[in-house]
């Protein structure tokens, strides 16, 4: 049994396997299938200052080895989260991290400030990369200047661990990562979904109500892996890797590329217990290769 503990800044993880925002609800949805406290952390659904109904149906299109979604940050707002959801999840024995989104810098700051006071929320993940809302979201994450501005403002207002989730829909993701690092991000997570599109040729109509949506699943894994590699080379802060991880082998590839931890997203839809299997698979790999700790394989790619 290898040591799977790993830290992301001040955040202590019992293992490097976490679940991605928007794919694991608030964790409670999965408690019928598994012991959710076994995973290293749960990134809960994207939360905004006010409640959002999200985009109209249809919001999903299945694609080769993946899916497009255009949910559009449906959530009941941060106050509802604090009053009604937080009390039901705060005693889960793992890191509960809130994914925070907004349309303006003030939205982000105000939401982050409200989350400051919650004892059992050790970190937030700043979502500057959602491709499915008209304003905000990805608009902040696709230029160094706006990414830096929003991180700078939230950094001043938020005292705990600040993770910034990066968009892959950029020319050079390392530049954005460096920009948010310079403004005080404690770590970065990447990648969010890739902007994509699906068409129903018979009807000559787009499949999604929003025409475009975010692509996830194993189809995006090689791109995610490349970006994690590039960013890990560029920054000094820890990197959390995600994008198309379906099993332990995929997760290990991200760790080797330089991610200190990983998130599992779309795979939760096919196998709700996949995260447990990934934890066990990483442990088996470490034992098989004679590693004492998961630290030894972070960035251990031999090139």
């Amino acid at each position, binding site marked *: 049994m290898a040591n799977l503990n790993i830290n992301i800044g001040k955040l202590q993880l019992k293992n490097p396997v976490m679940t991605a925002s928007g794919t694991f609800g608030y964790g409670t*949805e999965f408690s019928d299938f598994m012991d959710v406290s076994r995973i290293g952390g749960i990134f809960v659904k994207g939360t905004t200052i006010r409640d959002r109904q*999200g985009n109209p149906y*249809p919001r*999903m*299109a299945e694609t080769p080895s993946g*899916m497009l979604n255009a949910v559009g940050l449906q959530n009941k707002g941060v106050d509802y989260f604090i009053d009604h959801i937080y009390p039901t999840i705060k005693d889960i024995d793992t890191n509960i991290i809130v994914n925070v989104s907004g349309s303006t810098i003030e939205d982000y700051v105000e939401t982050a400030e409200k989350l400051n006071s919650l004892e059992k929320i050790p970190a937030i993940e700043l979502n500057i990369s959602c491709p499915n809302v008209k304003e905000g979201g990805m608009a902040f994450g696709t230029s160094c200047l706006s990414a830096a501005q929003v991180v700078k403002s939230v950094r001043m207002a938020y005292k705990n661990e600040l993770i910034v989730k990066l968009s892959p829909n950029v020319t050079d993701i390392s530049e954005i990562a460096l920009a948010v690092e310079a403004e005080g991000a404690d770590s970065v997570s990447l990648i969010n979904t890739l902007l994509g599109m699906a068409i129903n040729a018979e009807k000559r109509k787009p499949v999604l109500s929003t025409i475009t949506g975010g692509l996830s699943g194993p189809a995006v894994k090689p791109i995610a892996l490349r970006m994690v590699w590039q960013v890990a080379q560029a920054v000094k802060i820890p990197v959390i890797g995600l994008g198309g991880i379906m099993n332990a082998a995929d997760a290990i590839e991200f760790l080797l590329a330089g991610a200190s931890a990983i998130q599992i997203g779309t795979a939760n*839809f096919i196998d*709700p217990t996949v995260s447990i299997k990934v934890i066990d698979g990483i442990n088996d790999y470490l034992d098989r290769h004679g590693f004492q700790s998961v630290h030894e394989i972070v960035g251990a790619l031999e090139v």
Partner: protein
Amino acid sequence: MLDLIIKENKQLSSQYSLLILTSPDKLPEILPGQFAEVRVDGSQTTFLRRPISIHFVDYELNELWLLIQIVGDGTRRMAEMNVGECLNLLMPLGNSFNFPENKDAKVLLVGGGCGVAPLLYLGANLKNAGFEVNFLLGARSKADLLQLCEYERFGNVYTTTEDGTHGERGFVTQHSALNGSKFDYIYTCGPTPMMKSVAAYAAKTKANCEVSLENTMACGIGACLCCVTDTTEGHLCVCTEGPVFNITKLKWQI
């Protein structure tokens, strides 16, 4: 998650197969209207699980029936499975149909196409609960009317076909059975235009009406928020708040 074994695969027509599944373990309690998310192995184009209605449960024989309509590669792969192979299911998922409080209530179950699937198990449960059951089943043609003798075990069966090859010619909502009788509770599942016209009939005749929706889904457990429908309470997940909705809750223009 359950791994069930294919006990029988009955090809009902070129488009439909009936999978009879079983398990060495006792099947869980399943309510009428609930569904399973079925994992499809060995299909290159199928990535997500497929939501499939529970067609029937036979607890004595420990059998679960799924009616599969071949619409793409995933359902084709399912329909071609062999006896003895394993199928992985997340189930039972979703809510269920509600029964009338008054045992004398006249109930009608209206199905079209593959939407007839959940009505068999519903009809069986209604009959067990002491209701007199009426099925009204519609299809394009005689060959698309499936499992009629199974429905006949649990109630009266009326049929319509678009080409007139079985029962009355036309759509379910044109059937003469609707003219003479007043139904108190109507359940429906099938193509959306059909369900909307059934809902309109129910609204007109002041019948209580529940519909089972078939929105495209990813997770099936309320995590991804992809399968939402617009309701009086905002966007709700069809997988967890449904698939059964009372028409008064839906924002349908009827």
